[in-house]
């Protein structure tokens, strides 16, 4: 029994210690971002590896998700004779929820895990230690550009996901199932609200970009510098990011669309 409480106490304490380390790490990153701005080359390189290399997975997934929405939406809406509103359903689902959430989950799997593995391996191969001994702060030189790149890329990728998804919905709804093309687009234009739908979706994707980049970089930086440690850290990045994205999505949705 005492062992149980001892283990419980130890894990609670180490969780709080880790939370404290991650908050301190975030403060260091935020301070380091100012040094990235005058050195755009550091940022563009990371924008390429974090953002551009995630382009394909986002486009393909967005297209398929849009097609599935088009298909499912058509079958349900046609029962009520409301298939003309398919565009609204597809677009609203994407810009409000699926765009930011699924793009963030894919981003965590593709770019987040890569960031953790990269930073963890840099730690294991003493590259970070080596930089410190050269009097170069790794937070400013290595971590901050990657964080900023993740933060910038995520909303753009989510927007891309939603846009491609809307086209995927149109391909199925209009192209295959015969919904009127004009109705698909005009209903969408007249019903979707810029502030209520699009801006709220963008806010969500900004929050997810911030959280996923933070989790991925911290897990890499805090990883045990062995192959097993890096592997565990990479898994933690994907799992913790998924929890954070889904949990925060509920909170943000409640704040944005609920009457709380």
């Amino acid at each position: 029994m005492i062992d149980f409480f001892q283990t419980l106490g130890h894990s609670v304490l180490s969780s709080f210690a880790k939370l404290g380390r991650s908050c301190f790490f975030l403060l260091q990153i935020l301070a380091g971002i100012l040094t990235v701005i005058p050195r755009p080359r550091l940022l563009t390189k990371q924008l390429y590896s974090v953002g551009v290399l995630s382009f394909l997975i986002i486009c393909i997934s967005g297209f398929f998700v849009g097609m599935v929405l088009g298909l499912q939406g058509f079958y349900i809406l046609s029962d009520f004779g409301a298939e003309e509103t398919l565009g609204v359903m597809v677009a609203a689902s994407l810009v409000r929820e699926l765009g930011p959430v699924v793009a963030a989950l894919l981003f965590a799997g593709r770019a987040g895990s890569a960031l953790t593995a990269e930073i963890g391996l840099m730690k294991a191969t003493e590259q970070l230690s080596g930089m410190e001994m050269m009097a170069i702060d790794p937070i400013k030189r290595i971590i901050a550009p990657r964080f900023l790149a993740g933060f910038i890329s995520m909303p753009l990728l989510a927007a891309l996901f939603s846009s491609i998804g809307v086209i995927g919905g149109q391909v199925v709804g209009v192209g295959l199932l015969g919904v009127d093309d004009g109705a698909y687009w005009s209903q969408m234009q007249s019903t979707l609200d810029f502030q209520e739908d699009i801006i709220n979706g963008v806010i969500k994707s900004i929050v997810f970009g911030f959280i996923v980049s933070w989790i991925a970089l911290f897990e890499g930086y805090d990883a045990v510098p062995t192959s097993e440690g890096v592997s565990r850290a990479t898994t933690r990045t994907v799992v913790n990011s998924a929890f954070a994205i889904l949990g925060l999505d509920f909170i943000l949705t409640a704040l944005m669309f609920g009457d709380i």
Partner: protein
Amino acid sequence: MENSVSPDKDIISIQNLTFSRGHRKIFDNISLGIRRGKVTAIMGPSGTGKTTLLKLIGGQLYPEHGQIFVRRQNVHKLKRADLYNLRKRMGMLFQSGALLTDINVYDNVALPLREHTALNESMIRTLVLMKLHAVGLRGARDLMPGELSGGMARRVALARAIALDPTMIMYDEPFTGQDPISLGVLVKLIKELNDTLGLTSIIVSHDVEETLGIADYIYVLSEGKIAGHGTPEQISNSGSEWVQQFLKGNADGPVHFHYPADDYNNDLFQ
């Protein structure tokens, strides 16, 4: 044996250092001095904390007790900016080389110059080529670290370590895992750099022959204490059983071959 500590002549002075990892004491109240302009070797078997000592000197780890002075500054009392200024005058060669793997050899050597100086690119190019030439790898400037052999990677790391013209360099196991040619090149480079650039060198190693060949002074560590120290001749003629076992590589002696365990027969037939 009296430790050779002379704060006036020493560039590094370690006083009453105690450091533990968990319950294990890595250093137990040791004091030692590193002479300016000399090659000093810290020797001992694996796990005696040689690399830890370099990290303590570089301010990457904090001692439990004791003080470490580098150029008369207490490393662990310095503010971050002052510590970074001190590190600019210290080069460190990591065992793995610690080259950044996403940039090529040229950019690795140029990194400290770009970060810490306001030199233009043409001046940086000249300096980088000079440093690479010194280690014989001017022609490898466009290679990526992944394309280098272990010996080449260590030489590139050495070129990077001397990029800012430091006053001292710390070498972490520079000879481990090297083929005879790379080994000979590294030994020659370390000695030449020390003598021609007037550096102070600290070599952490367990390679007896190479280290004895180039060191001016040697400290041998064992179980958290200094087991012996002196010039290579003094160390070679040391009366300490432990030092002799280490130098000759005997399987048994004061350091046992077997990790502490229960009785063998009991263990097998229980």
